[in-house]
């Protein structure tokens, strides 16, 4: 394995499971020192234990990224704990409900945006000065194909993920002078436990057969793309949105 992220302090949000876990693990295998952030201390603990068991330097931070003050304090802790400023930030944390239009309630949509949009603003706000102090950095934000190709009951989710694209491109322009790159991954259907759990067996089989590759993507395939974007291999990518959906949204339907 290449050590493209050797000794860099990388923060991954939503790191306890699924895509976030795979990203934290892949970054660690490429030499990164990983700050694993998740709202759930209970879920985060075994994750960090597993990753650390590989010989990776990983630390757990149980924080709700929707809370600005907590995020600011966490980044100060991360810099102190690793004795180095943050070099890479991956915003993967999300909280979502899929509801038909007439059932969307204020509490749900507020919570979704608090984590999935505001949370990215708070982490970038806290991370950017640290990155600037070390001469630059890389931010990778997770959107979704739903930003462009909405699925069923995804009015709030599509708005959330389209919001990630807009804020990331604006941040790319704003942070360029500090040599901070901001790029976006838009995954298609990824076979995490959470995404598979929403379907019964028949629906799952139908959904998988609709995929051009005949399968959902693996979290590790998103992690490989995230590693590219976080590394110097992507030194000329700025404000890019990269879809990783096995070609699912390429054809008209």
């Amino acid at each position, binding site marked *: 394995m290449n050590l493209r992220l050797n000794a860099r302090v990388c923060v991954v949000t939503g790191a306890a499971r699924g895509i976030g876990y795979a990203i934290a693990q892949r970054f660690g295998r490429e030499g990164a020192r990983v700050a694993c952030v998740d709202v759930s201390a209970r879920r985060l603990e075994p994750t960090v234990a597993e990753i650390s068991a590989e010989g990776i330097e990983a630390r757990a931070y149980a924080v709700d990224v929707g809370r600005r003050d907590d995020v600011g304090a966490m980044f100060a802790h991360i810099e102190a704990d690793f004795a180095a400023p943050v070099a890479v930030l991956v915003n993967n944390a999300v909280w979502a409900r899929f509801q038909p239009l007439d059932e969307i309630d204020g509490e749900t949509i507020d919570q979704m945006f608090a984590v999935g949009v505001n949370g990215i603003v708070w982490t970038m706000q806290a991370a950017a000065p640290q990155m600037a102090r070390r001469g630059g950095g890389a931010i990778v934000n997770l959107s979704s194909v739903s930003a462009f190709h909405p699925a069923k009951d995804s009015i709030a989710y599509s708005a959330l993920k389209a919001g990630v694209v807009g804020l990331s491109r604006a941040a790319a322009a704003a942070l360029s002078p500090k040599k901070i790159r901001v790029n976006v991954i838009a995954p298609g259907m990824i076979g995490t436990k959470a995404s598979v759990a929403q379907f019964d067996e028949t629906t799952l089989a139908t959904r998988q057969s609709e995929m051009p*590759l005949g399968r959902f993507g693996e979290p590790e395939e998103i992690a490989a793309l995230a590693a590219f974007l976080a590394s110097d291999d992507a030194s000329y*990518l*700025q404000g890019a949105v990269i879809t990783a959906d096995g070609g699912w949204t390429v054809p008209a339907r």
Partner: protein
Amino acid sequence: MRRLDGKRAIVTGGGSGIGRASAIRFAREGAAVLIVGRAANAEEVAAEIRAEGGAASSMIADAAMEANVAAMVERCLSEWGGMEIFFANIGVTGSNTPLFEQTVEEWTEVYRLNTVSSFLAIKYAGRHMTAQRCGSIILTSSAASLRANAGAISYSASKAAVNSLAQTAANAFAGTGVRVNAILPGLVETKLTRKVFEDARARGVEAKLGHVTPLKRPGRAEEIAAAAAFLASDDSSYVDGQLLSVDGGVSSTHPYGRIAL
């Protein structure tokens, strides 16, 4: 274990610029590379790779001629025993003569070298790769395919057609295990853009090159090669039919000045 160990690659336009940097990068990641160019510099790149311990050979050919593309695939199969990667990278910039003076002959040649060459790569690499049920085809497009004022008109239009080829071919190959993607570089100093860079240096305004990009600089061929290596490798196993901008952010913002190219 390197990412391209055991893989075999063809790189067209491999004698200089992005093609050269990509051939070197592919070889450093473990691939055996057939470098195709229209001049002897293809062999110079192959020799350079062999000198650092890599596996490379070369072939002089026009990668926009059907018989040549068929022949380079055959050559890679016989010489290296297979082919998993085809980087269709040759291209020309087109003429910057005023629109009303441009001729069908100029346009046809730009389309032949930029668009038809991509089609031929898809046809011949795709035929082999779909049969073996794996492979990655990479097309060089351009930021000019998305935005006006980043290149000649014929060039921009021909590269927009390349974008469509990446999508339509990915769709045509759905379920075969063969992926097709395009890279959209911004301003990079290569044989195609050398005049832009030389003119800027001559006028003492080199520092202004790439200033309309958020990163405020032109790209390097090695930075495009790194993206090509990602698309060539299994790290991009779920990326298919995509247009990957490697342009310092120029296509992600409003253009706010003339783009020198």
